[in-house]
């Protein structure tokens, strides 16, 4: 199919949305409610574009291209419409960027910067303040919520828990749990996938203070199970202060409660950082050299005395596939036994 975007011809496949076509062409379209993994929702209206021959604006995230469509993504009319949408959003949003955890990685902040919105031109009512801090890992602050619905849809469509939904109607709408009984009393499994997708500071992990610009992301494989979820650890100085799921990898941008929130052991003072060798009935810190030497000596001794079949190896589901492979190789090729198993075989 042929389409023209901002005067340039492109060829796209059938059934692509205008947004997908634009992204492929490297044209940046602002979106607040879109996620490739979810059904189009079209609630934020930031992705509006103009189509020649039609006097209506359409949302590019939920409009499929037609052959010979002529699209404008940044006409004056569109820019003004997006400005109005942002103006309306910040008219019901506390501009607390100075103290907001999300500052620096907030889509609302970024778009206000891009479209030159300094403050709202409306000075009217605001949504009733409402917070849910009952979950041990994260908080919800309705004042900052822009109701993009990403959290609700991730929880429903991808996490398949459907713990949260919209409550009230119109201007009073909030994200909430059934009968407003609070996250802790809901079906929520604390996976935090809602927190990961929130584009603003409405859903935030419980205090782990850091500024986005003073942190860096380190990609790693989650060590809790063998699925191999990819995540980016957020590191400030030499401390891990957060985890964000990565879209590359089998987890496609999702995590469970452990991957998302259970990283605090990394910097825990009780954590064992060197091998321990038991001497005189007491564990003592040792170097890796010492430890390997001891292992080698013991293995050789037992093998001489009782043969290879005296050994059995058991690995953990928390090891990666590569580590598990190497371990069985060690047992079969070096030690010489097939007595090798894994705790996830149950």
């Amino acid at each position, binding site marked *: 199919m042929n389409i023209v975007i901002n005067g340039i011809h492109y060829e796209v496949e059938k059934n692509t949305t205008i947004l997908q076509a634009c992204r492929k062409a490297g044209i940046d379209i602002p979106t607040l409610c879109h996620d490739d993994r979810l059904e189009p929702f079209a609630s934020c*209206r930031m992705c509006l574009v103009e189509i020649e021959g039609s006097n209506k604006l359409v949302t590019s995230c939920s409009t499929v291209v037609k052959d010979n469509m002529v699209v404008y993504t940044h006409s004056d009319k569109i820019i003004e419409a997006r400005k*109005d949408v942002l103006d309306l959003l910040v008219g019901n949003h506390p501009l607390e960027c100075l103290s907001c955890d999300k500052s620096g990685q907030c889509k609302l902040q970024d778009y206000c910067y891009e479209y030159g919105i300094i403050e709202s031109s409306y000075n*009217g009512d605001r949504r009733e303040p409402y917070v849910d801090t009952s979950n041990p890992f994260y908080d919800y602050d309705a004042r900052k919520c822009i*109701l993009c619905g990403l959290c609700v849809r991730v929880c429903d469509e991808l996490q398949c828990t459907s713990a949260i939904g*919209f409550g009230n109607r*119109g201007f009073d709408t909030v994200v909430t749990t059934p009968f407003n009984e609070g996250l802790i009393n809901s079906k929520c499994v604390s996976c935090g996938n809602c927190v990961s997708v929130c584009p603003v500071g409405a859903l935030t992990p419980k205090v782990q203070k850091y500024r986005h610009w003073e942190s860096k992301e380190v990609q790693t494989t989650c060590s809790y199970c063998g699925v191999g979820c990819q995540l980016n650890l957020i590191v400030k100085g030499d401390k891990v202060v957060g985890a964000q799921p990565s879209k590359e990898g089998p987890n496609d941008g999702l995590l469970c409660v452990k991957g998302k929130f259970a990283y605090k052991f990394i910097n825990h003072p009780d954590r064992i950082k060197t091998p321990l060798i038991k001497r005189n009935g007491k564990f003592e810190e040792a170097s890796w050299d010492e430890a390997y030497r001891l292992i080698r000596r013991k293995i050789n001794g037992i093998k001489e005395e009782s043969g290879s079949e005296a050994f059995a190896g058991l690995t953990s589901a928390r090891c990666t596939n590569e580590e598990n492979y190497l371990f069985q190789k060690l047992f079969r090729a070096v030690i010489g036994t097939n007595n090798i198993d894994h705790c996830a075989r149950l």
Partner: protein
Amino acid sequence: MITVEKLKKIKKEQRPLLEKRLREIGNVDIKEDGSIVLNGDYYKKQLRIALKNCEIIDPNNIKEYIAVDGYFALADCLSNMSPKEIIEDIKESGLRGRGGAGFPTGKKWETAYSYDDDQKYMIANADEGDPGAFMDRSILENDPHSVLEGMIIGGYAVGADKGFIYVRAEYPLAVERLQIAIEQAKELGVLGNNILGTGFNFDIELRLGAGAFVCGEGTALIESIEGKRGMPRTKIYRTSHKGLWEKPTIINNVETYANVPVIFQKGVNWYKNIGTEKSPGTKVFALVGKVENAGLVEVPMGTTLREIVFDIGGGTQNGKKFKAVQTGGPSGGCIPADLIDTPVDFESLDEIGSIMGSGGMVVMDEDTCMVDIARYFLDFTVDESCGKCVPCREGTKRLLEMLERFVAGKGEEGDIERLERLSNTVTEASLCSLGKTAATPIVTTLKYFMDEYKAHIYDKKCPAGACQALVEYFITDDCIGCGACAKACPVDCISGEKKELHVIDQDRCIKCGACMEACPPKVSAVIKR
């Protein structure tokens, strides 16, 4: 098993009984061609198709419906017509949806027909959420079988075997009568399995709405039937392609369905000749407001507003000056007196900035403030916005806040421009038609009654004298000093010696109007200005 012969037999037996009953009541004329119409001036000027059986037959007796030719169209369609032929006839008749948008019904049915699927659905939209509207209610309560018959014909045409009627829970009588009608139709064999012995199956269930206006919007209604929150879907697909549970679904308005059997009874050509070329047939209006004869009016499309408001409605009450008429419900437009000769059809109303909507028609006289009317309708939309999309959720609220400021005398320079701009954004950027049309009352009043906006904002005056905050009670020189007003004033802000001119302390006045009422009618020295 019921057959056409049996239907004819029922008709033959029941018809004389019906006529006898009606003659006793004496509210109808029975014409030579067999049609029965309500008598009286109010009805003479109307042409009733959708309402043709209302107040004539007993809705709780399916035999009376059969006595006025009910279910014969269904029998004819099932035995003598193919689905394709039915769709062609509906297309040819030019029938357009009566739920507001006027979408061609035949075209919609054709789309659903064209998708091959193991399951398709028919839905009757009986949510009727417009304040003051009661067209559908009247049909459901007085002639439920006409809706069932229309749905079954539609089901046969598109290949659906399941129908839902989504009806407001606030219409308990309609619900009850629909339930009775469904039971009787099943018992007789015109609904359920093997209808009229043709092998066609069709079942209808009721679903009750919980009072959200937005659930009248087709896709929100579908979400609601699916058990989800009533929020409109983004329209990637037509519902006739992927609707209820992602299956091809026809959703039509109650009045639309009520028109279907008549088209087959009387023929496509008969139908096409009523109304205008692009909007054939009739439309039912709920004529309300400051009009002498309020009520349901069904007239051919293209009838002028003047004929409806003055000839049928009898004009305004108490000889007040006619000012405007609002068509199309809360998202409709206000049409000024000088456009009273506009014909009422989809195109003509659209041209002057208003809409047909579902058929609300509110008459306004000189005492109605158009800024306040816009505020009133916005207040409704703000309450009923589902909250999904930004322009409607946040924008209608800000529009309302501006209008609230105007009627309170707090409008500022530049506000009209701001109001225009935001109205435009809400209209262009909202997701569903609730938001897209929410600003129509503002846009049309700005277009036709700009003076009133300016008076409120710049002069702090309400020309209609309706906005409490902007009126002033004032005692003229005609005052005879009787003191009746001072006695009536609940905040004691009127002073004056006996037999001398009395004065109202404007700062303390609460604008209750008690003084005006207390002043002897012969004197009438208290005026509102």
